[in-house]
């Protein structure tokens, strides 16, 4: 759904297409998942840095005949404002669709479902281990920080003092993670991780017939929109 919505916003173009996708597909879905507020906040925050550069570049460098105002050698044109506006709604549609996916999908379930659908178990392991690595390293850093504090390291106070306190932790955190790698890989081999072939996963994500139909319809609509764009038969939306 996120893929179709993102590509759809890009392909359909104009203002109406992306706004329709946001208003008719993304926000209702987010509301039903009770994440609409968080989704809008996160998407706005994610889009903001790109939006600023898009506005600056498009408004002042886009060639156009209707000059609105000038700053030094740069002319802000109506065509540039229009292009920036269209780009912004596309960006917002893409970021909300990806954000909705992130907020409503548990990463572990997603990766294991991909494995069920044919992804290599090795690749699935790498993806899952990467997801797990961050909290594990944060926890390890916290243990090492406690040990260092017990030996007099000052990690409190001003930003400068905290930074000074963080530096001595970096080495032990990375080194201790690396030294465990060999034993961890051996432990995995003992549990037949290297065995070729597929494995039977213990559970599957519920996937109803309705969901399947919705996905198929969305995909067909996307393919039709792309085909329409390529052949020039797709109507140009405002």
């Amino acid at each position, binding site marked *: 759904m996120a893929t179709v919505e993102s590509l759809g916003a890009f392909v359909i173009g104009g203002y109406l297409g992306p706004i329709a996708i946001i208003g008719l597909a993304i926000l209702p879905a987010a509301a039903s998942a009770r994440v609409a507020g968080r989704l809008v906040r996160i998407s706005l925050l994610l889009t903001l840095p790109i939006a600023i550069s898009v506005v600056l570049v498009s408004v002042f460098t886009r060639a156009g005949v209707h000059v609105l105002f000038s700053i030094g050698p740069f002319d802000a044109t109506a065509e540039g404002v229009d292009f920036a506006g269209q780009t912004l709604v596309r960006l917002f549609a893409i970021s909300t669709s990806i954000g909705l996916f992130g907020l409503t999908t548990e990463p*572990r379930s997603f990766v294991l479902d991909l494995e069920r659908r044919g992804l290599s*178990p090795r690749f699935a*392991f790498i993806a*899952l*281990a990467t997801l*797990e*690595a961050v*909290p*594990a390293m944060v*926890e390890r850093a916290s243990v090492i920080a406690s040990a260092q504090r017990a030996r007099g390291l000052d990690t409190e106070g001003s930003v400068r003092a905290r930074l000074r306190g963080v530096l001595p932790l970096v080495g032990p955190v990375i080194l201790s993670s690396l030294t*465990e790698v*060999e*034993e*961890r*890989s*051996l*432990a*995995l*081999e*003992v*549990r*037949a*991780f*290297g*065995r*070729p*072939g*597929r*494995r*039977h*996963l*213990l559970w599957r994500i519920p996937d109803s017939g309705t969901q399947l139909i919705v996905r198929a319809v969305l995909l067909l609509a996307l393919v039709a929109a792309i085909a329409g764009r390529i052949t020039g038969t797709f109507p140009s939306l405002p």
Partner: protein
Amino acid sequence: MLELTGVSYRYAGYATEVLHDIDLRLADGEIVGLVGPNEAGKSTLCLVASGLAPASVGGSLRGTLTLDGTPAAGLATHELAERVVVGFQNPNTQRSGIAATVFEEIALGPMNLGLAVAETVERTREAIERLKLEHLILRDPQRLSGGQAQLVGIASLLAMRPRHVILDEPTAQLDPAGTRLVGEALRSLAGTGTSLLIAEHKTDLLDGLCSRIVAIDGGRIVIDGPTGEVFDDPRLTGLGVERPARARLAAALATRGVEPGVLGGALEDATR
């Protein structure tokens, strides 16, 4: 049967061998304890007996490891895993790091073997029951205490239902109750014909569990015999191995002229 014949092993990049001319045979259903001072080569022997050294660890091996008559040298690591498993002393490195629950963590090995879901679930449940981990099955494996993680690590190995189990200090982080639990689980596993080699500093556990004790020092087997005889052997003290409470108490009684036999089974009961 697991058999090491004339085995010497050298780690990659090292000039000298860590193990020298090891001959060791584990019969089906036999539990053998491995003792020795630090850096005697116990962990290396565990790696070699499991086939991981040199197959995965590297290094060079002289001599042979055979598993039920099949030379281990010709087996891929996943084929080794179907025959022999090894557990390490650090429970943190035993965790796969990808399982959301203890149940999934224990099920990972059988799942990797390509077993049907029903078989995986059955093996997992059996391992959980053996180590009485029912109350932990929905817990995040990263949120376990050291002892709990060690039990989960052992359960993960038992769920593979291997013919041979090698354990390197399996109770290092366990309290006495946990240690007893592991002892009972291993004894019952041996009852199914699985052979076990257990490297352990807690000689009280080995005393009640093993039929044979092997002591190594400097990479060589220096004592190999029935548990009672080895733990009464005065050479053990010279190796820095603490004899089990039963053996120490019996020796203390003997120095005072008391024959331990007069206590009947009370000595064993008190030190068990």
